[in-house]
């Protein structure tokens, strides 16, 4: 047990709680600027270069002053980290990567079962367990209070107790969900803080390291710890994979699962157990305040990329693993930055990327789809206006033939009078239609429809009028009101709906003949 306490004294990478900076600092600062790059070129460019160099130098010097053993440059450290040269780095990377992956996998179901906040409660509720476990172990055998398996067991038990308390409060009282979560979270955390104060007063000082559970302390992981984490993380992943279908039905339709005879309570408890387990493993790395981010952020990010549950779980696992590794690498490269927050921030960066660029639901994707449908709507509007203009000059009872449509000229002004739209909009619609090969520009004279344009114009007008007729006949909407509704609706008419319209109205209007407009154009 001696090794544990020395480890806790070594490199506490949580600066907020570090009480022993002074013991390490200042031992070696000599090798900092071995690779001082030459300053070349004057002028503004040189200024930028200088500024950049200053920033780099600052980053080099500042961390060095806090972390004593490190004397290499940022790039050296980055290379060392990535090439897994340090035994310690290797261990930490492996452990946190597994942690990230298991968090991502469990997080998928946690998110879909709407249990995200429960994860936060579990994190906070684990604190009293850690305090009690420490006290019990100290009582049984003084000096053994920081045995990691013991502390983790304590955290697991009280985390689980916290989760169960929220469920019990919800079930047996009239207190609502959110209040139950807030109550349990704060009470457990309060008890934990009180216990920690007692522990610190009582003990001879070697309890200080217990604080690592609040903010996390990845860099101190030892091989034995990582082995324990690895076993637990792999177990979590394995259980989730084996019970994938059972967890799916639990998260999607609990009542149906129950009616089918699945032991819903058991499955739900199992999921809760997995959540608690991931939280407890994560405590050591990111601390109980941030631990909820491990499962929730990757899962929420993954949802932007796919509509498929399996793929979502894979992506979530990937994002969890990558952000864990990125966090460790960042903090190994810049020792001032502690690992836990770096893992969370890496996850946040990936979340932001997913939020904007996610293939399925990302903001950019949706904006692009919106733009495409606007373009389509504009094209349909324009073509229909072309059709209506060409049709207007025909004698009563005559119908347009496509040859006539491609021969006649259309001018900007004639189209402008069709609708209440701005000239700039019509012009942009026209030039787009020319680019798409629907219209031909005939110099100053105006535009002519191409064959393709004529076909599409007929179809647009036909769909529009079919819908209008449907509204008038079947929905009994006044003809004077029908145009506006039809304008909005016709863009979303699916082939199936059009087919139904054909069966309802098609006989009166054989194919490719456009019915007369049911109202004044």
């Amino acid at each position, binding site marked *: 047990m001696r090794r544990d306490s020395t480890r806790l004294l070594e490199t506490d990478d949580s600066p907020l709680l570090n009480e022993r900076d002074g013991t390490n600092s200042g031992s070696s600062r000599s090798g900092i600027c071995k690779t001082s790059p030459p300053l070349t070129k004057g002028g503004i460019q040189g200024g930028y270069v200088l500024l950049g160099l200053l920033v780099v130098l600052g980053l080099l010097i500042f961390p060095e002053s806090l972390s004593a053993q490190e004397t290499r440059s940022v790039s050296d450290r980055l290379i060392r980290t990535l090439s897994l040269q340090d035994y310690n780095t290797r261990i930490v990377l492996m452990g946190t990567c597994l942690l990230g992956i298991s968090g991502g996998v469990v997080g998928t179901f946690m998110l879909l079962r709407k249990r995200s906040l429960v994860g936060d409660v579990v994190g906070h509720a684990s604190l009293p367990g850690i305090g009690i476990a420490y006290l019990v172990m100290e009582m049984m055998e003084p000096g053994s209070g920081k045995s990691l398996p013991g502390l983790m067991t304590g955290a697991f038990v009280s985390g689980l107790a916290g989760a169960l308390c929220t469920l019990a409060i919800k079930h047996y009282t009239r207190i609502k969900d959110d209040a139950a979560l807030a109550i349990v979270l704060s009470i457990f955390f309060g008890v934990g803080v009180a216990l920690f104060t007692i522990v610190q007063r009582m003990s001879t000082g070697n309890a200080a390291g217990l604080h690592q559970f609040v903010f996390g302390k990845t860099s101190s992981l030892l091989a034995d710890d990582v082995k324990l984490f690895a076993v637990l993380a792999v177990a979590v992943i394995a259980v989730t994979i084996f019970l994938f279908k059972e967890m*799916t039905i639990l998260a999607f339709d609990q*009542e*149906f699962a129950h*009616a*089918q*005879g699945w032991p819903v309570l058991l499955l739900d408890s199992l999921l809760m157990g997995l959540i608690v387990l991931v939280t407890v493993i994560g405590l050591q790395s990111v601390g109980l305040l941030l631990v909820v981010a491990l499962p929730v952020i990757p899962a929420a990010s993954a949802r932007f990329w796919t509509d498929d549950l399996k793929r979502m779980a894979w992506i979530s696992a990937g994002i969890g693993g990558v952000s864990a590794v990125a966090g460790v690498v960042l903090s190994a490269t810049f020792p001032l930055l502690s690992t836990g927050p770096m893992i969370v921030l890496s996850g946040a960066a990936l979340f932001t990327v997913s939020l904007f660029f996610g293939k399925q639901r990302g903001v950019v994707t949706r904006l692009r789809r919106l733009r495409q449908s606007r373009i389509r709507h504009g094209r349909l509007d324009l073509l229909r206006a072309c059709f209506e203009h060409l049709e207007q000059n025909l004698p009563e009872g005559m119908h347009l033939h496509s040859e006539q449509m491609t021969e006649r000229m259309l001018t900007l002004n004639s189209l402008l009078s069709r609708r209440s739209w701005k000239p700039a909009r019509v012009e942009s619609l026209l030039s787009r239609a020319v680019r798409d090969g629907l219209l031909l520009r005939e110099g100053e004279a105006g535009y002519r429809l191409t064959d393709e344009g004529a076909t599409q114009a007929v179809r647009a007008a036909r769909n529009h009028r079919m819908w209008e007729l449907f509204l008038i006949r079947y929905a009994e909407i006044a003809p004077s009101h029908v145009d506006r509704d039809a304008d909005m609706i016709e863009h979303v008419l699916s082939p199936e709906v059009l087919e139904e319209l054909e069966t309802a109205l098609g006989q009166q209007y054989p194919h490719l003949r456009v019915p007369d407009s049911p109202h004044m154009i």
Partner: protein
Amino acid sequence: MSQAQLDQMRAEHPASSPLSIHDMTVAYQRKPVLWDIDYDAPAGKLVAIVGPNGAGKSTLIKAALDLVPRISGMVMMFGHPYSQQRKRIAYVPQRGSVDWDFPISARQVVEMGLYRKIGWFRPVTKKYRQQAVEALDRVGLVDYADRQISQLSGGQQQRVFLARALVQDADLYLMDEPFIGVDAATERAIVELLRELRSSGKTALVVHHDLQTVSEYFDEVLLLNMRIVAAGPVKEVFTEENLRATYGGKLALLEQVGHRMQLSEMGE
């Protein structure tokens, strides 16, 4: 359940009935919402469960399926408790009871009806995927098998739920408001499906809200308002008088006593 109760139940209810409910009372939050329900569903018929809002129609189905605890009474399906008959019963919950934004396809929802058959830990194999697609075909959604469920219309979502029940190949179907908020095409498809089920000897109990269509769609009707008002063939039972009794407001005394029971049970 004591032996004496069991004997009494067996004596009073025919063992052949797909669903026998004996003297059942059900409470939500300790307030009784169904009183002394005693009913035998006729085999091979389509039964509508009809009643006003809050009459306990959904609760009746849920209590029969052990989803809601019963204060008293017994339920038998084909002469045995539900826990021994799960394979022969298919349940169609209300469409609004799940999150349709869930990342899952129509086919995968239908596959859930097969999960029990597939068993613990095993993945869904090709054979079962095929069965799910066939069930989707029966409700006219084979082209939508791989669509994510949020992209389906309300009627299509309802048909996915029906397909999930069909794939179970049960003998008794319990459906909670399958006709609510669906388009005409879906309504036709459901009616056709119900008739198909009947002609192959299956029984269906359907919570139904549209009084206009009861006599057209169903053989039997169960009029419910916290207690059974009347039950039997549509022609005999679906009368104006019975409907007035069903929809003429809740029995004030039942409501009042129920509320008092709730208060006393909650210690208030």
